[in-house]
């Protein structure tokens, strides 16, 4: 039997991880400052390890770390600014500030990618779509049908090509262009035929009945969800203020500014650590969380 794998945050309403992770990713993108970026990267990496597992995270890092190194090393050659000369490569000067800016931007990109990958693991498509507003009740349906169509078409195209290549008695295979035309025509006909039966299946169950559609919500916002949301929004606001205060005075060039008071980083450190901490806490509860869902 197919069953849904337990995921972090499955014991709370989808709005809680959506707000937390969207807010964290957004603030990460706006906080171009080495300490904030380092904290974000550490938090994102830990969260990815917890939510996606070591193997998936390492697989991602195989392209993310080279990207980080590339941005870090390439930046001095595009922006030869700064005051601390490290070395000269031909006519180009490499400054520590320029290198730091490249490393910060590279790390920022990797951190945001990790946050988004972690969010995708936690917020499955149906949970995200359930957050759509009441006025757009058909939107989840359209999105879910579209999301089913593409993998189905790809799978069918593979079967068609495999069948064609297996039928050697029919003579030489078609050229690439003819094969593509044949496959796409067959896919279109197959999908259209399916859509006729699917439309009948929808109408047989009252689709376009003229009644206002109601909405089955698999998750309900409860008191603890509302409290968690309020806490997360407050923490995000505090982080935004601290980030603004720090980043508005921060300069990479010509010389990097002072880091400022340590306590301005504290809310951000808490925010970056929160997704992984909450995920670990929910897994200690047994994966399903402290309370059941509808």
């Amino acid at each position: 039997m197919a069953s849904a794998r337990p995921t972090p945050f499955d014991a709370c309403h989808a709005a809680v991880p959506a707000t937390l992770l969207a807010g964290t990713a957004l603030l990460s993108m706006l906080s171009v400052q080495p300490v904030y970026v380092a904290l974000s990267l550490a938090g994102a990496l830990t969260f990815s390890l917890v939510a996606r597992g070591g193997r998936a995270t390492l697989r991602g890092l195989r392209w993310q770390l080279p990207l980080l190194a590339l941005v870090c090393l390439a930046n001095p050659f595009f922006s030869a600014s700064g005051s601390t000369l490290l070395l000269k490569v031909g006519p180009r000067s490499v400054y520590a500030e320029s290198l730091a800016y490249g490393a910060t931007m590279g790390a920022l990109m990797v951190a945001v990618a990790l946050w988004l990958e972690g969010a995708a693991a936690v917020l499955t498509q149906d949970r995200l779509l359930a957050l759509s507003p009441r006025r757009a009740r058909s939107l989840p349906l359209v999105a879910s049908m579209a999301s089913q169509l593409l993998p189905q078409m790809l799978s069918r195209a593979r079967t068609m090509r495999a069948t064609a290549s297996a039928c050697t008695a029919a003579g030489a295979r078609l050229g690439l262009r003819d094969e593509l035309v044949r496959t796409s025509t067959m896919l279109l006909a197959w999908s259209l035929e399916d859509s006729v039966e699917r439309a009948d299946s929808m109408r047989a169950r009252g689709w376009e009945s003229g009644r206002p559609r109601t909405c089955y919500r698999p998750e309900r916002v409860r008191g603890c969800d509302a409290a968690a949301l309020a806490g997360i929004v407050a923490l995000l606001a505090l982080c935004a203020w601290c980030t603004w205060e720090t980043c508005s005075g921060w300069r990479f060039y010509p010389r990097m500014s002072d880091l400022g008071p340590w306590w301005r980083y504290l809310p951000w450190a808490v925010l970056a650590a929160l997704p992984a901490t909450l995920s670990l806490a929910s897994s200690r509860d047994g994966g399903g969380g402290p309370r059941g869902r509808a």
Partner: protein
Amino acid sequence: MGALEYDRVSFSYAGASAPVLRDASLSVGEGEFCLLVGATGSGKSTLLRLAKPEISPGGERFGSVRVHGEDVRALDPVASARAVGYVFQSPDAQVVCDTVWHELAFGLENLGVPEAEMRRRVAECCNFLGIEPWFRARTAQLSGGQRQVLALASALVMRPRLLLLDEPTSMLDPLAEKRFLGLLFRANRELGLTVVVATHSPAAMVEYATRALELSGGSVREVPLEGLSERPLAAPAPRADARVPAAPALSARDVWYRYDREGGWVLRELDLEVGEGEVRALVGSNGCGKSTLLSVAAGVLRPARGRVRNRLGASQALLPQSPRALLSRETVLDELTEWSRTGGYARAEVDAALGRMGLADAPDRHPYDLSGGQQHLLALEKLLLVHPRLLLLDEPTKGLDRAARERLAERLASARDDGATVLLATHDMGFVRAVADRVSLMFDGAIAATEPTGEFFATSWLWG
């Protein structure tokens, strides 16, 4: 007052020369489990659909159809959805949503049922059908059998008093079919639901049904249930000498295969030898690796370990589970002539194939306008026209009625007599008995036993 009544109903499709239904009359009582049988293309689906105005076919209709005493033409979509549930044939095409819970709630959402009431109905339906373990699964993850149970649940959750099913098990393997019919029977007996099932293979349903009606020549008549039980297929007997020739046409040695590195092995330590001119059946439960073995034998998949030798690889043909993966033309005639130039066959052979399928007078029909079984036959005839030396068939009898299975068995025996080697994967043991020389039982990705057909069934605990 019957649950479903047809009074002298005639129906013609727009532009058709002859009516599909002619003065068809029937009455199904409340709580009955009624089978509607008839040959492929006899109009069973048309008859059922006329009881659901929102999916009724376009055409000219006479006579009246009443559900619980009310003319269906007076039913609006909401009343119709509440009164009559409908389950379609294809497990894939009728699923609308991407999650099980959303699929169950879809109809109730359309009817504007309040959320609290929806929760209750969904919960009760899941309890009744045992869906709770996969309630939160994605529909794409479900097996064909689970999808069809979901389709049943999606109809039952709206609490209709009458349930119409159009060939609901024709795409299922025997195990999934039994599970589905068991649930349907419970719905009939425990919930008092009136059930009408259109089917061309009624044998598996006879033990559940209370009566049977046959649609023939456009009219309906009562038939005894006893006459619908399974009987052996009339087909050429397997050859007496089923020894494997010294030089096998196809051999596999210690073959291992898996679809991705994280996945488990689908084939493991698999050894197989198929002799030239032999008809070999691969049997075994779903997921044991039958289809994968066919793809490996065809050279479509490359084994991770081991070796496959196919002496007939230059003249082979593969029939996939879904014939639509092979059908690419606008008409039946074009389909059959597609490979005539490269395959070296003439129009006379095409005409003979059309005749065998009973489509000699309809060569211009679109292949998709044929029934599922006819599409299977068309795909097979297309393959046979190029005279392959090796035929690889994946579930060739899926969706075929008894007469078509017998015709197919004859065609395979004829191909074998012409020297073709056949390797077929199937759940249809009646067909295996009729056509196979030897049977290989697959289990856990390997061949558990290979025996001559007679010996296999004589010693089998399960199928003997």
